[in-house]
């Protein structure tokens, strides 16, 4: 009798939880679900997938459930995440091993960069390809059988760029970057550079411009002793970490170098249609950072605080600049904090992101209209990614 009661109770508990959850889900997402249901461009299968996505993205206490999932993965001693696409290295960082790129893909990438460089040269604009800094993965860091070709791919790309005589700022060969421990180069839960790496990259780019074109930039802007470190400890769970939760990935400290010198910056963000989305003017931390994200304990992906969580077409005007130089940085999300620091050295900087769904219009037209003095290209150019550089 007792066992029968337990069985009945279990059945009703499970059914109760499932249906309560279902009703709460429908009630709290009715507008989004309705939009999917009436969307005539989608077939039944796509509609069901979209409704499932809405559930997965909006379910109550999602981060807690993912923490539980991650905890189980940890107990099961799993080093792979997301069906063998992400791996936890032996030094604790989560990385995504890259497949080997073909010669054809590399040539296509470089041809596109060359088109931009040629265009800039004709317009009298200085153009540099800035090499990406990649996570260092030693042979033993990944499980046997898993290879990471990111460095091989990068080397092939840079060889091709060198052959085509494209000016480069090769961050991989800079001592200040090579001196950073591999554990500190990137956030352990995210694919982006750490603040230390970003600042070193900023210093190296400015140093190279100083050397190449006698750029007169006050050293106070690039000297780290003129910055204070703002650290929000154990607060950041990056794009990889969010997939497995804090018990699996751990958490990163979120660090920002805040200028101690006076700053007067205006930030503008535009959408793909060129409409102004956000405008702020003030000191560095106010104008460029989303402070709500930084200090909201429940908001895990702190990287979004950079550039006010805007990532299509960001523009920063520096009213304390010592020059009239305008810079265009073409980069994916790595470039967002970098743009902020570069903005301290120039009158104006713009950052456009060529990833799908971001700024995907003709880049040559953008350069022609903006007419910058310097163009910096900082992107990995994987797959179709490069095509937007020269979309007609």
């Amino acid at each position, binding site marked *: 009798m007792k066992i029968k009661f337990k069985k009945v109770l279990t059945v009703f508990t499970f059914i109760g939880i499932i249906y309560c959850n279902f009703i709460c889900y429908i009630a709290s997402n009715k507008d989004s679900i309705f939009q999917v249901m009436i969307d005539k461009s989608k077939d039944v299968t796509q509609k069901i997938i979209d409704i499932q996505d809405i559930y997965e993205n909006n379910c109550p206490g999602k981060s807690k459930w*993912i923490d539980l999932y991650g905890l*189980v993965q940890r107990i099961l*001693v799993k080093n792979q995440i997301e069906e063998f696409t992400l791996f936890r290295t032996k030094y604790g960082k989560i990385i995504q091993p890259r497949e080997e790129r073909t010669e054809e893909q590399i040539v296509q990438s470089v041809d596109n960069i060359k088109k931009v460089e040629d265009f800039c040269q004709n317009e009298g604009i200085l153009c540099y390809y800035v090499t990406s800094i990649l996570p260092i993965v030693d042979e033993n860091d990944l499980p046997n059988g898993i290879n990471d070709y990111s460095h091989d791919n990068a080397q092939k790309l840079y060889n091709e760029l060198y052959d085509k005589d494209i000016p480069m700022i090769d961050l991989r060969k800079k001592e200040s970057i090579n001196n950073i421990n591999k554990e500190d180069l990137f956030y352990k839960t995210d694919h982006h550079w750490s603040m230390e790496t970003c600042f070193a990259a900023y210093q190296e780019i400015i140093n190279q411009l100083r050397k190449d074109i006698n750029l007169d930039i006050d050293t106070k802007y690039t000297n780290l002793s003129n910055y204070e470190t703002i650290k929000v400890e154990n607060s950041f769970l990056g794009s990889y970490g969010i997939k497995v939760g804090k018990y699996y990935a751990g958490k990163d400290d979120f660090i920002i170098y805040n200028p101690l010198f006076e700053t007067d910056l205006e930030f503008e963000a535009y959408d793909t249609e060129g409409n102004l989305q956000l405008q702020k003017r003030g000191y560095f931390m106010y104008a460029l950072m989303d402070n709500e994200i930084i200090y909201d304990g429940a908001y895990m992906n702190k990287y979004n605080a950079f550039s006010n969580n805007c990532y299509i077409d960001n523009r920063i005007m520096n009213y304390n600049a010592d020059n009239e130089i305008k810079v265009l940085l073409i980069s994916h999300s790595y470039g967002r904090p970098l743009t902020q620091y570069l903005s301290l050295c120039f009158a104006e900087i713009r950052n456009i992101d060529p990833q799908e769904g971001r700024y995907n219009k003709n880049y040559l037209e953008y350069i022609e209209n903006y007419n910058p003095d310097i163009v910096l290209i900082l992107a990995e150019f994987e797959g179709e990614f490069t095509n937007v550089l020269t979309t007609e």
Partner: protein
Amino acid sequence: MIVWLLTGIWHGANFTFILWGIIYGTMIIIEKQIFEKYDIIRRKEYRVFVVLLIIICWVIFRAENVELALRFIGTMFSFNFDNADIAILYAKEYFICILVGLILIRPIEKVQNIQIIQKCKWGGIYLMFALDVAYMIKGTYNPFIYFNF
């Protein structure tokens, strides 16, 4: 047989689903008509055979087409050790799951009699339910397999 054939077709317009349904239907007929009669189904070897067959059938079910499925199955039984490190990696990643599977593969009466399972049965059921929800919300590999017409 008709039920399993329709079950296969219900998953989509692909010969892989039909083949999957036919194999299941055929095996159930053979099991009911022959193996049960001669009490073969109680043999350990039979349980191993059934588990292997189910694994093979899932390969057919998930493959893009029959040709790929056969090539996949051929590789499974080719005893080619060129990619042994990948196999070892998978075995390592799923080691604990395989271990638990090996315990639970035994007949339910025997599993129920394991002392620790008796003690933790109800807690375990609720825990498994919570874990199911966690994995569902995580949206782990969960391709939509229906309406593939």
